[in-house]
């Protein structure tokens, strides 16, 4: 499915478009930048596959994101518009500041606890003294840092994640909701938080109910290839599932095959679900499907997830 430059995607569900829809998604109507970023590559590029794929699909993304948003209960604050302040919603500090934050963890061993070096033979090179044992980051207090990305954090529930702003654009943001759109492929990521009185299973059901607002015939995806082998979020095990169905337009007309991947976990304080909606999920990228490729990309969000606070 493709749209001419400047033309918006069709409206789904007869609902009012969220403000972000008045803007073209990044890259809309423009050749994807794959063509210009192959350093020193020559000859026929396998990226042609990617380009062809992109040319064919072009962004159902915004549609899915919009539908989800429209299905949300009224947000405490109006949705944010990218590029505009969104107080008092989540902040987007540069990741560089996060990387400078020392991590808490195990007390460094005193140097006396280290193995005492034997005196080397005369003239043998010597090693400078070792630094104390670098601290490890206890689970659930600080996720691995991804340099060069952006961060999103819930001000009230104090969880957050990092994302590569070159890959994802934040299209919607409230205090407990972030919607990101993959820049170059047809994928939308929804990160929904709640207090821990909502279980992961309940949060998954809520999210799937929203998905059912723009997907018909949703069934469990039983392909082993698509299986979630170890659902987790921010290194806390959770629950999850993979589904397939048909994405619909506003009047219920089938538009394209869709795939949904969802994981949810809780740290006992908050419960968070990550939902990924992919259009044309089985389109092949070489030997892998679009859904697989996009899921791999979203893994960076999942891995960087920071539960914040204390359990």
């Amino acid at each position, binding site marked *: 499915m493709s749209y001419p430059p400047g033309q918006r995607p069709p409206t789904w569900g007869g609902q009012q478009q969220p403000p972000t829809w008045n803007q073209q998604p990044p890259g809309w109507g423009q050749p994807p930048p794959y063509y210009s970023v192959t350093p020193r590559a020559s000859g026929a590029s396998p990226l042609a596959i990617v380009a062809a794929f992109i040319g064919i699909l072009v962004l159902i993304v915004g549609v899915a994101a919009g539908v989800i948003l429209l299905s949300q209960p009224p947000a405490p604050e109006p949705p944010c518009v990218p590029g505009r302040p969104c107080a008092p919603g989540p902040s987007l500090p540069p990741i560089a500041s996060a990387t400078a934050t020392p991590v808490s963890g195990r007390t460094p061993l005193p140097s006396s606890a280290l193995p005492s070096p034997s005196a080397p033979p005369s003239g043998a090179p010597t090693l400078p003294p070792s630094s104390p044992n670098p601290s490890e980051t206890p689970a659930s207090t600080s996720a691995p840092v991804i340099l060069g990305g952006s961060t999103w954090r819930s001000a009230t529930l104090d969880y957050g994640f990092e994302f590569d702003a070159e890959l994802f654009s934040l299209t919607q943001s409230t205090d407990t909701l972030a919607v990101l759109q993959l820049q170059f492929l047809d994928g939308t990521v929804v990160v929904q938080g709640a207090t821990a009185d909502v279980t992961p299973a309940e949060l998954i059901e809520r999210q799937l109910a929203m998905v059912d607002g723009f997907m018909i015939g949703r069934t469990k995806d039983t392909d082993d290839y*698509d299986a979630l082998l170890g659902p987790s979020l921010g290194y806390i095990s959770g629950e999850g599932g993979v589904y397939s169905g048909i994405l619909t337009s506003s009047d219920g007309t089938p538009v394209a095959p869709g795939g949904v991947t969802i994981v949810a976990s809780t740290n006992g304080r908050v419960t968070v679900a990550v939902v990924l909606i992919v259009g044309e999920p089985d389109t092949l990228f070489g030997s892998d499907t679009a859904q697989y490729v996009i899921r791999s990309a979203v893994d960076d969000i999942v891995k960087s997830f920071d539960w914040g606070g204390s359990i």
Partner: protein
Amino acid sequence: MSAARRLAAVAVIVVTGLGCSNPTYPGGGDTQIAVPPHPGQATAQTEPVETGPTAGDEEVQFTVSLNLRDEDGMTALLERLNDPASLDFHQYISATAFGERFGLPSEDVARVVGWLESAGLRAAAVPQRTSISVSGSASSVNQLLGITLHDWSSPNGERFHRPSGLPAVPAHLSDKVAAVLGLDTEPVLRPAFGGILASGVPSGGLRPNTVARAYEIDPLHAAGMRGEGQVVAIVSFDTFTPSDVDLFDAREGVAAPRVEIVRVPGAADEPGSGTGEVALDIQVIRGIAPQARIINYEGPNTANGFAALMARIVADGLAEIVSISWGLCEKYSSPSALRAEEREFDAAFAAGLSVFVASGDDGAYGCRRVAISDDPFNRDLSQDSQWPSTSASTIGVGGTFLSVREDGTYISEAGWEEPLGGAGGGGGLSTVVDRPSWQEGVGVDNAASNGMRQVPDVAGPSDPSSGFLVVYTEPGQGVVEGQVGGTSAAAPFWAASMALTRQMAGTEGVDSLGALAPTLYQIAAEQPAGAVFHDVIRGGNLLFEAGPGWDYSTGLGSPRVAPLARAIIDFLKR
């Protein structure tokens, strides 16, 4: 590398399919050879197509694996090599000594060689008497073994051959021949190699300075250890473009010896789909130990390709440290073939070689990329570990996600797992290899333990999100530079780190590190937690979680190289 480029890399990484071959292996006692049943039959996404009989004059290669005369004696020696109370403790033996003590009598080896040569084949036994490398015309091979070699074409156009019929060995030699390996040349070994996306390390990927800072290699460099006098062997089932090394050297300011190549018969003439793997291995080692002599041992990518290459490495006796970043899940190789290969790794262990092997990139589900029916999306999701990281004579290297500060200093690591994409550092239990006596310590005995080999032993940076910046020539695409990960990176990372350790040891009168696996466990048991290993305590491998002590995701952990070097040297000085 731009985001688009990185995303595209996900799509263009070519992974050799695990369309499982159906190799034939000799049994014993009769001229007719039995074919051990495969536990399962993997099917590529599109089946290979037979294109006709192999031309009679085509040169083909295979390996005849030999039984040992004294396998029990060899097993006992391997135990004593690790027993501080034994007079044989760390008394490693040469390939020739291994052959004389445990191999078939030389006259028996000569009989097998004579039988092969009688058909006009060329046959060369290695001094450890574990195997014979054979080459000759297809027609001669067909006639000798009573088979017919057929050409096949894989879905991506790769040509290979498979035998029909069962290879026959004369009855009088059947107790001497353990297996005939390599007649099926379908490329099934897979590099543990991948590249993607965002980064836990400074923009572009891990570079030598960052690695050195993060893992405390800097102190060794500062002490003048850059790999001088050390030899690291790489086991490769592809080759590389030498100018790629030049590009790396220019980028990193390295002036170092050229990478050497040793080819066994059947090795690829030109870089293929695994060339990125070879480039990764070379560049990771060169970045950490730039003055080390790197020998790239290249062989044909077949289901049991390790046998020929390991036999050659042990026979050459040049390298004490070996890096392997290829493998396949145990389930899709015959136990008899694995045993034959294990002998080669045992000979390496007996010779004091440390063989670092990537544990694979599919988490605890080592066969995940194997389609088990005509439906390419019908995958094998059983728990399985990847050979040869599960060998009791190698060091399995698992994967981590590394986070560092902008200046490269270490923040943390997590066991590498990608819950949505399904990738992760390999780890779990072998179904073939018993747990060696030296594998013990905190965490080793756990709820999943069943007496079989547990992997990995150690871990290193593998998540492509904290991958290494690698430059290589992709066939048909040109030179590409990108962030690459996989446990493929962790194995050479460990190999290079231990090359520096060996150099340091040499300055203190310790000439050999020996087979390091037992030493690493013994040191881990003696040292305070965190003193020489980063004990990775979060993350996992999609099934097993990382935790204090040894675990199935990261083993003993990743190295703090300088303190670990100190501990190893002190241990070996006792």
